C-alpha cells in the first residue's frame, strides 16, 4: 500500500542525547577514523576546539536514533522488508563536542508515490545545549511496492 501523503509534516517527540568521549571513540573506531581530534585527549585539548570533538557523521548516532520510532510507527506502517536507504544529505553547523547535550527533532518533509515505489524524506535537525544548530540530516528512504 502506498504511503499516504497526509503524513508530510508529521513530527515525532524530540530526543535528547548526552555526548561523551567514550561513545565518540567507539564510533570513530567503527568508521576506522583515528583522527586525534576524536580520540587523543591531549591533542584535542591543544586544538582550537579545546576538547574531544565528534566526527561530523556522528550525527547519525543522536539523529539516527529518531529514525527507529519512524520505522516502527503504527500509523505510518512502513513495509521495512522493502525499505532501502536511498539518499543522505548532511549540513553541518557547529561541531559537536564531548559533554554536549544534543536535542533532535524529526519531521517527514516529503512523500512521493511512484508506480513501483514510494519515496519518504525525513529531516532531522539537531541543536546543542546552547540552542545552536549542529546538524541537519536529510534521510531519503525508498520503499518498493
Amino acid at each position: 500500500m502506498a504511503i499516504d501523503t497526509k503524513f508530510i509534516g508529521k513530527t515525532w517527540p524530540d530526543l535528547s542525547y548526552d555526548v561523551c568521549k567514550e561513545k565518540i571513540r567507539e564510533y570513530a573506531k567503527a568508521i576506522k577514523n583515528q583522527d586525534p581530534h576524536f580520540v587523543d585527549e591531549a591533542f584535542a585539548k591543544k586544538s582550537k576546539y579545546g576538547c574531544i570533538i565528534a566526527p561530523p557523521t556522528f550525527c547519525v548516532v543522536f539523529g539516527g536514533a529518531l529514525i527507529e520510532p519512524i520505522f516502527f510507527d503504527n500509523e505510518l506502517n512502513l513495509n521495512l522488508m522493502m525499505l532501502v536507504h536511498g539518499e543522505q544529505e548532511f549540513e553541518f553547523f557547529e561541531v559537536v563536542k564531548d559533554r554536549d547535550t544534543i536535542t533532535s527533532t524529526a519531521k517527514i518533509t516529503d512523500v512521493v508515490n511512484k508506480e513501483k515505489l514510494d519515496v519518504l524524506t525525513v529531516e532531522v535537525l539537531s541543536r546543542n545545549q546552547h540552542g545552536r544548530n549542529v546538524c541537519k540530516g536529510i534521510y531519503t528512504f525508498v520503499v518498493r511496492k
Partner: protein
Amino acid sequence: MADKITKGTTFQAQEVVDKYRAIYYAGASGDFNPIHIDPEFGKMVGLGGVILHGLCALGFVAKSVTDWTGDPGRLKKLRCRFATPVHIEDTITVAGEVLEVSGGRAVLNLKVTRQNGEEVEKNVMAEVEA
C-alpha cells in the same frame, strides 16, 4: 593537509571493509538491521550475505575529506545517493576533486568506487570551508 584549497586539486583515500566492519558499525550506530549483521538473513533476502551500512561507507567518505582538510570542523555539507550495496571485503576508493571555490567555501565532487570500478555511491558532493 589542505591549507589553501584551489580549484582542480585532487585527493584520494581507500578503506577495506574488513569481515567485522558491519558489526562494529552496528554497535556504534545502533543500527542492528539483520541485513548488516546476519549472513543467513542477507542471503534469504537476495543480498548474498551481509552488506555494509550505507552510512558507514559515507563515514569513510567524510573521513577522506576531513583527513584532507586536516580539520573536521571544515566539512559543512555532504550528500550522496546509495547506488549499490557495499559488501564485506570490498575495497572502497574515494577520489575527490575541487570543482569550485567561492565565498569561502569549496565544492568537492567525490567518486566512490569498489575494487571493480563500480560506483557504490553516486552524486557524492561535499562542501568545505576553503
